[in-house]
């Protein structure tokens, strides 16, 4: 009897322990969702913190946290840049990276900022944000205030004088550090004479059914950029950076064009398919299932460097309306601190060395005169004509545009 009872007690003990440990392990990812967690350990995080021996007087340098979101390549870029910056003897701060992989927590970055902003925090650990300028309007919209980001004192960033790019976001509040753009990518070997204008593109798509694809706009910026450009090239330029709902009624022409090309797009299993994510269409091009796609220039170049896309892959824009791109900027949220010291890191990123890092790690288009950069990777970027890249920043209208696409294009048979 006695033994039986002890056994039962032991069993209960084991079970409750098991529950505690099981719950403990399942709650750990949740804890990493709290702002500025010490334990949110992306591999880059671990790498960057390991590489901070900070030989000279570590106590004097303030810690500045950079937040960004995107694909893995962005994490690679900032890990490399921060390692190099922190090793500089005259670095004014110790940089730290908080990286949110896109699709896992990127929607939460503006939520976190908005939450910190609305609760009037002053030192919430969001010291610098690196983000597409076209996306930053969304940050302001969620926070409900244009005071979310602080004005920048450009005199403290000497290298800013060399920047040749104008941002699509508030000029006085952002420092552009690279440009990224959507292009048409094709394989020269399979498509020696690509269409030159939008009309020729329409004709080419109809003549070659199944050989063109774009990814569904809500799942990746390449398809999103293609849809936005298709719609907005018919609308006055003043609409391109406006979130005013009055422009919605002018979307029809563009959507009619998207409906017109729909039956001639990539098909699988007997129906037209819009792959999910930017990589979805890239895979189709890689596997030779299609001949031309809209894609991010940097992703095409990365795939070429990795050998998954052949060296005969070409990128270009149509002459009567380039696909959209965006400058990517540093901004300083009012919920962060150490702005003065952070300028020093931004200055580093704008130096020829910083720009070279961007170019070589993620094939970013530099914001300074490319002739001042010395890199073998230059050639790939130089061929990109970004002078007529269209900048479209729709703010909250972007979600509406995706909704309309989901309702009218995705449902077509």
């Amino acid at each position, binding site marked *: 009897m006695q033994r039986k*009872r002890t056994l039962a007690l032991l069993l209960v003990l084991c079970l409750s322990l098991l529950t505690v440990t099981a719950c403990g392990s399942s709650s750990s990812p949740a804890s990493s969702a709290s702002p500025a967690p010490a334990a949110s350990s992306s591999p880059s995080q671990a790498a960057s913190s390991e590489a901070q021996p900070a030989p000279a007087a570590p106590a004097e340098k303030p810690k500045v946290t950079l937040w960004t979101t995107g694909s893995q390549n962005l994490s690679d870029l900032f890990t490399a840049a921060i390692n190099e910056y922190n090793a500089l003897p005259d670095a004014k701060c110790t940089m730290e990276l908080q990286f949110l992989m896109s699709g896992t927590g990127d929607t939460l970055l503006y939520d976190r900022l908005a939450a910190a902003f609305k609760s009037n925090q002053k030192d919430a650990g969001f010291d610098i944000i690196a983000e597409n300028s076209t996306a930053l309007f969304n940050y302001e919209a969620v926070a409900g205030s244009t005071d979310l980001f602080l004005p920048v004192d450009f005199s403290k960033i000497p290298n800013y004088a060399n920047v040749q790019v104008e941002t699509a976001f508030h000029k006085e509040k952002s420092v552009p550090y690279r440009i990224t753009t959507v292009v048409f990518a094709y394989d020269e070997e399979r498509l020696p004479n690509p269409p030159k204008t939008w009309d020729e593109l329409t004709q080419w798509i109809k003549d070659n059914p199944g050989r063109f694809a774009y990814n569904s706009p809500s799942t990746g910026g390449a398809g999103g950029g293609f849809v936005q450009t298709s719609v907005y090239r018919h609308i006055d330029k003043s609409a391109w950076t406006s979130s005013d709902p009055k422009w919605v009624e002018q979307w029809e022409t563009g959507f009619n064009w998207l409906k017109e090309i729909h039956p001639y797009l990539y098909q699988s299993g007997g129906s037209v398919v819009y792959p999910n994510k930017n990589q979805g269409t890239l895979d189709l091009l890689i596997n030779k299932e299609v001949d031309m796609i809209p894609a991010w220039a940097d992703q095409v170049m990365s795939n070429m460097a990795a050998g998954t896309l052949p060296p005969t892959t070409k990128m270009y824009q149509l002459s009567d309306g380039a696909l959209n791109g965006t400058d990517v900027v540093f901004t300083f949220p009012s919920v962060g601190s150490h702005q003065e010291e952070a300028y020093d890191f931004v200055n580093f990123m704008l130096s020829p060395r910083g720009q070279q890092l961007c170019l070589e790690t993620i094939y970013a288009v530099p914001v300074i005169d490319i002739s001042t950069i010395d890199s073998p990777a230059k050639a790939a970027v130089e061929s990109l004509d970004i002078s007529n890249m269209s900048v479209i920043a729709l703010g909250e209208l972007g979600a509406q545009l995706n909704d309309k696409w989901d309702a009218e294009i*995705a449902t077509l048979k």
Partner: protein
Amino acid sequence: MTKKTWKTYLLIAAMLLPSLILALGIILTPMISVVIQSFQDENGNFSLEQYRFLFTDRMALDNLWYTVWITIVTVIGAIAISYLLALYLRFCDTKISKFISTLYLLPRFVPQLVAIYAMMTVVRDSGLLNRISQLFGYNFKPGLLYNAKGIIMMNLWFNIAFATMIIVAALAGIPDSIVESSRDVGAGKIHTFFKMILPLSFKDVMIVMTFIFMSNISSFTTPYIIGPNHPKLLGVYLRDQFSRMRYERAAAISVLIFAFSSISAVVYLYTNLKEKEWEKTGL
């Protein structure tokens, strides 16, 4: 038996307390807040707007029925295949069956994403099958991705191993003597199956069905990667709405998914209770 004193009860309660607190904290609290949020409009006022939208909007309805349809097909398909496989493993004692019985659990150990991408490289229209067919001068395109066929195929791949595992265990619990005695009194194979084996394993089949139903009604990874643009499964639809910052609508979709899971939970409980009734009357 020694009598359970209040001390024993106190001890048991004290030991269950930590897990109880955790369960309340990380399961029940968020669940309640999601339910509350689903009954709000964008300004936080009480409203049935989200549910009205989900049950009237054409796309939302399409998504709903598509999800239910795919889940039911998955459940039926997985059970049918698993049951046959389990019967084979239980009643055929050959080298092949032993080999299969060590292999069939393999899918349980392959991470979902890896499995999906592996399957994609084989069955996509330019995948392995297509390239093999090209060697022989054909251009075979399976057309299995980005539609319901692909999702169901992948769901089966994941669930057959699990279902077989449970059903094999159930069939193993049926003594050979029962089967033999049934055969002795002249019952044929089919008769034995329907009169003895199926009723004795029915409870486990129901349990497997509820588990497969619950895990597939809320599936995300598979339909997100190889699903169509429209209709979408509820999991993907939820993520969609969430990323467009429609948190109240996302909450309503969660509640809907939860309601479906609850239905299958009720079925599960009912089957278990019914079993008890049956046991009371004796064999």
